[in-house]
């Protein structure tokens, strides 16, 4: 049986109106543990033997297709022509001889047993079958390709109304709605803790630690499982990546920063000595999940961007290299002497070096030197009480 797939990716209207989005892209086009929800869906379709997939996206983002995703056609279309393009793509698939078309609108990420879904559609002798999760309909359909009018009515109503009776297939497997930053974070956790069938991309260098090609973890940095470091990402010395954190491709974590239970989206950089916890970091935006707040961080010393273009990156790296030696000489001769941090513990107890001159400020509560004067076995009953 000739089964083909049509995957639609559009940014929802309410997302577009979001005053502080994490990224200009739809959540399904954001990398989670190395791959986007679209790429994972296409791979899943291929696993079930569907090798011809058409992907239509409403943003100008080019969906990367690697060698494993042969047979995938990608189209980008303006938002206003999105549904017309989807209808045309369906007609093309039907003309090419498809008998069934699986229509997936991402949206959320669902791991549907496609074999059972298609069998259910055939058993029901239905024109269109829809997937639902706990009675809630998802925008995933199986459409008999010969029923073009039903398909046209579905596309023209933006997948909200079906012309004929539409049986529903109850999905009991993994589903993530991917509506907000919290969902994106949850998907990362589920992938890293292997609750999903899809796995992090790259190589598992240690149990629970995945790394993609050309990722750099500098000496002194610590990556605690489960964690993911994407392609070309850089974790600088004394940084700590822990508790299901994911550093996506081309992201940078500067010296001494701690990334705990967080997702750092592609091309984001985190300044030195910062504490990022329970958050999703986007383009100059931090979504803190514990406080349930999204904050714009205008200061590029705290959260910035990594230059995207290869040429620009090369030039900026060359400039940094050329400027390094004179800068060090200048600092050595004229700069104030700075005491070296002795260990990781001291580094973690200090304020962020991104704060400049005030970074050296030590409050009594953080005075680790005083603590070191006493043996570790000494019990301090009331450390900051009355004298």
């Amino acid at each position, binding site marked *: 049986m000739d089964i083909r797939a049509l995957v639609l990716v559009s940014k929802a209207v309410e997302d577009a109106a979001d005053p502080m989005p994490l990224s200009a892209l739809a959540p399904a086009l954001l990398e989670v543990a190395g791959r986007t929800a679209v790429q994972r869906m296409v791979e899943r379709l291929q696993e079930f033997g569907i090798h011809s997939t058409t992907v239509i996206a409403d943003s100008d983002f080019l969906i990367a297709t690697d060698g494993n995703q042969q047979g995938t056609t990608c189209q980008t279309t303006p938002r206003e022509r999105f549904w017309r393009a989807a209808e045309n793509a369906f007609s093309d698939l039907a003309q090419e001889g498809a008998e069934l078309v699986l229509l997936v609108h991402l949206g959320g990420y669902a791991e549907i047993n496609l074999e059972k879904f298609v069998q259910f559609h055939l058993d029901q002798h239905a024109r269109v079958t829809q997937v639902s999760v706990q009675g809630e309909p998802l925008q995933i359909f199986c459409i008999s390709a010969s029923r073009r009018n039903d398909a046209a009515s579905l596309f023209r109503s933006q997948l909200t109304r079906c012309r004929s009776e539409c049986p529903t297939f109850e999905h009991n497997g993994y589903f993530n709605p991917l509506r907000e930053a919290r969902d994106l974070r949850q998907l990362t956790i589920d992938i890293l803790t292997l609750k999903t069938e899809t796995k992090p991309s790259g190589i598992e260098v240690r149990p629970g630690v995945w790394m993609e090609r050309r990722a750099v973890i500098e000496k002194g940095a610590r990556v605690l499982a489960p964690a993911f470091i994407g392609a070309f990402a850089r974790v600088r010395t004394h940084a700590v990546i822990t508790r299901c954190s994911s550093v996506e491709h081309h992201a940078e974590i500067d010296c001494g920063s701690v990334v705990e239970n967080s997702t750092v989206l592609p091309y984001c950089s985190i300044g030195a000595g910062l504490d990022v916890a329970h958050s999703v970091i986007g383009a100059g935006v931090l979504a803190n999940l514990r406080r349930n707040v999204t904050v714009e961080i205008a*200061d590029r010393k705290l959260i910035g961007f990594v230059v995207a273009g290869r040429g620009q990156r090369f030039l900026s790296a060359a400039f940094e290299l050329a400027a390094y030696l004179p800068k060090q000489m200048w600092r050595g001769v004229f700069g104030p002497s700075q005491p070296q941090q002795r260990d990781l513990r001291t580094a973690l107890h200090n304020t962020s070096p991104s704060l400049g001159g*005030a970074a050296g400020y030590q409050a009594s509560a953080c005075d680790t030197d005083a603590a070191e004067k006493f043996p570790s076995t000494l019990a301090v009953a009331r450390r900051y009480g009355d004298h």
Partner: protein
Amino acid sequence: METISRPVVVKRMPERLNARAAREFLRDVQPFLVTDRPQLVFDLSQVKQLDAAGVEMLLRCMSEAHKRDGDLKLASLSPQAAVVLELTRTERLFEIYDTSADAVRSFSGFLPNAMRQQLLHRQQPPAPLAA
């Protein structure tokens, strides 16, 4: 012994606290910082954007206040300010209160009990007489 209670200065911080705003704010609070044992409360309820220069300014103010045996406390942190202070590991350096009133009240916490009672009596209006 006669003890004079020192005033507590409450200052509301601007909406955006970047390098320029931080400089201006520091200039505003400088006269209060150079007094003997300054007692300051910064209200951060309106802060929408706080950057490294703003945090640096807060640390500088606290450092100046501590030098003169005083203290600086923060109150009514907006979520944005709270996130940035947490991000820069500076929230643990400050005493933070839910409201400015709580922060002001906390300065009288070190007074002897007898004096605290006197102050409370002075603040509370006399109870109405029963008919």
